């Protein structure tokens, strides 16, 4: 496997982890739409910072994007506070406005530079390793660097060595991952309380507003960091998909955080592998995988998955029908009409059931030994009688 591939996988996995962590809190706060808004609205911030620095890899871009993201949140909340506009509409108004400013700025002033809208929207993971972080020998102790990072050494011209420290995106996302992890670990308790019960947090003096904007800043910075790799649309899949999947699987916040990261990484690796063998967009493949994994978990997760729920409903349907049958037999037991009422062939007429349904219910009850058949009659077993009595008591 060529080194470029490993780089891509590393970038994808780091990006997925960095996105999944704050995503957990967005999902729990029912604010996932906000991540969509932020991912678009930060464009003018990026463009302006790009005009200032003339570089796409300057950390200023991330800070500017972070600021624009927070501004988006502020705008949405201001609009909402007027009570003239609901939250979803406020989001729908704010982010296209900001995004369009970015689009206009690019088309007016930057149409000839590498900052095209396709790349912004879709990103291209395959190119991410091409933008590499290089350090000149004069800047750092080479031996130390070599030992710590054991990166390939490149001879560049006469005396100047430069070290290839790996792809730029990996560093950007690595730093963001560490930032997100640190924020969540340090303010775990505050994040949890502000998410579950913001009023209590406020009365206890643990400002939910501070936590809110801290989280939004991180979401904004993570989004722009992930921009390079996956673009502004697919980053939403990384932020929302894995936490929404993990939410189906656990009742514990810590476990939900860990699971989200694991699921994000699995999606990234499988997605990359799929893109590699079928030669399609990596970002597209990872986002598709995110959805496929969600659907799989949604279907098969024990107890609350769709399959488990459907099976429970079906079982309940038969059990209820069986209880009706048992109660019917119980009510007429020992009475003169018992013989007629318990005749297998005519049960469906008494109960007004479809004949096929009635015979299936009878088979179900026979299997469970709630009834037994004696000639043409159904007779309650002791077990069936107990069930009928219990059902009638409730």
């Amino acid at each position, binding site marked *: 496997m060529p080194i470029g591939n490993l780089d891509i996988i590393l970038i994808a996995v780091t990006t997925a982890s960095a996105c999944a962590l704050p995503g957990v809190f967005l999902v*729990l706060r029912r604010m996932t739409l906000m991540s969509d808004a932020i991912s678009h609205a930060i464009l003018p911030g990026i463009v302006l910072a790009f005009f200032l620095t003339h570089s796409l890899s300057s950390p200023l871009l991330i800070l500017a994007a972070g600021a624009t993201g927070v501004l988006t949140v502020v705008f949405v909340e201001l609009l909402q506070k007027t009570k003239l506009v609901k939250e979803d509409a406020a989001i729908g108004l704010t982010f296209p406005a900001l995004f369009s400013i970015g689009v206009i700025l690019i088309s007016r002033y930057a149409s000839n530079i590498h900052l095209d809208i396709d790349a912004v929207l879709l990103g291209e993971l395959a190119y991410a390793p091409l933008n590499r972080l290089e350090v000149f020998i004069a800047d750092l102790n080479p031996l130390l660097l070599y030992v710590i990072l054991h990166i390939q050494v490149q001879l560049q011209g006469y005396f100047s060595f430069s070290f290839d420290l790996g792809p730029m995106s990996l560093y950007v996302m690595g730093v963001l991952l560490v930032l997100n992890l640190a924020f969540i670990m340090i303010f775990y*308790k505050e994040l949890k*309380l502000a998410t*579950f019960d913001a*009023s*209590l947090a406020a*009365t*206890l*003096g643990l400002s939910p507003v501070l936590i809110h904007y801290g989280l939004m800043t991180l979401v904004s910075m993570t989004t722009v960091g992930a921009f390079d790799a996956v673009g502004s649309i697919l980053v939403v899949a990384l932020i929302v998909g894995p936490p929404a999947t993990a939410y189906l699987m656990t*009742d514990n916040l810590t476990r939900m955080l860990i699971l989200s990261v694991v699921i994000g990484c699995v999606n990234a690796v499988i997605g990359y592998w799929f893109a590699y063998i079928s030669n399609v967009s990596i970002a597209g493949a990872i986002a598709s995988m995110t959805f496929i994994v969600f659907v799989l978990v949604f279907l098969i997760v024990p107890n609350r998955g769709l399959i488990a729920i459907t099976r429970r409903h079906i079982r309940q349907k038969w059990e209820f029908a069986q209880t009706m049958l048992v109660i019917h037999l119980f009510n007429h037991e020992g009475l003169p009409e018992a013989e007629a009422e318990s005749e297998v062939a005519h049960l469906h007429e008494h109960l007004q059931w479809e004949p096929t349904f009635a015979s299936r219910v009878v088979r179900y009850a026979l299997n469970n030994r709630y009834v037994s058949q004696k000639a043409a009659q159904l007779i309650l077993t002791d077990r069936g009688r107990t069930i009928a009595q219990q059902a009638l008591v409730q």
Partner: protein
Amino acid sequence: MQALDSKAIEVTDLTVAYQETPVLWDIDLDVPPGVLLAIVGPNGAGKTTLIKAILGLVRPAAGNVLIYNKPYATQRRIVGYVPQRGSVDWDFPTNVLDVVMMGRYGALGWIKRPGSRDRELAMHALEKVGMENYTTRQISQLSGGQQQRVFLARALVQDATIYLMDEPFQGVDATTERAIISLLQELRENGKTVVVVHHDLQTVTDYFDWVTLLNIRRIASGPVKDTFTSENLRETYGGRIAFMKNR
């Protein structure tokens, strides 16, 4: 009991408005220490808003709130709050013990994590509300009454002097209601001040010793036997009140 002239809660000239619509008009309210007080009034009377204003959760348009003669921000530690049960998302991924521990977060302050002592206090509070066997239960699997008990336990671990509770009897069965009221009465016996937003006029005289009648204005406030009169009730509820009994 503390000196009679000290007031647990002192609300002066409090007006709260959403936009230009007043929700509370110029409220004056003194709550003496060690009473079990019911705030009653019709829907939309501003009962919840009054509690939230006392806790600094809504900004007043005018007026002031003092807790033992000091602003709320300096008295957080001695005030416990039980919000309405429906104000939180019970599908949040956490369990009973964890929710109760949240009551300790104020005492812990920023960043510091709860430890074994906080866990002990939480367990003790759960025993008090009879929920000690549910510590690891996911909160979405609790009944309404159990959820209310958990919220109560969460306030108890704050070990506050003043408790503010927003409809703690809402949607609970009779057994839970009795359990809760005897707990509140026990708090009062221990010198705590308990303020409860209450809906059921039938039980005011049985449960509480102090009452505030509210309908955007403060109609009356004082000991139940002097204040909970048909005249005051008529003024609070207008003609809409069917309940009339003289005690």
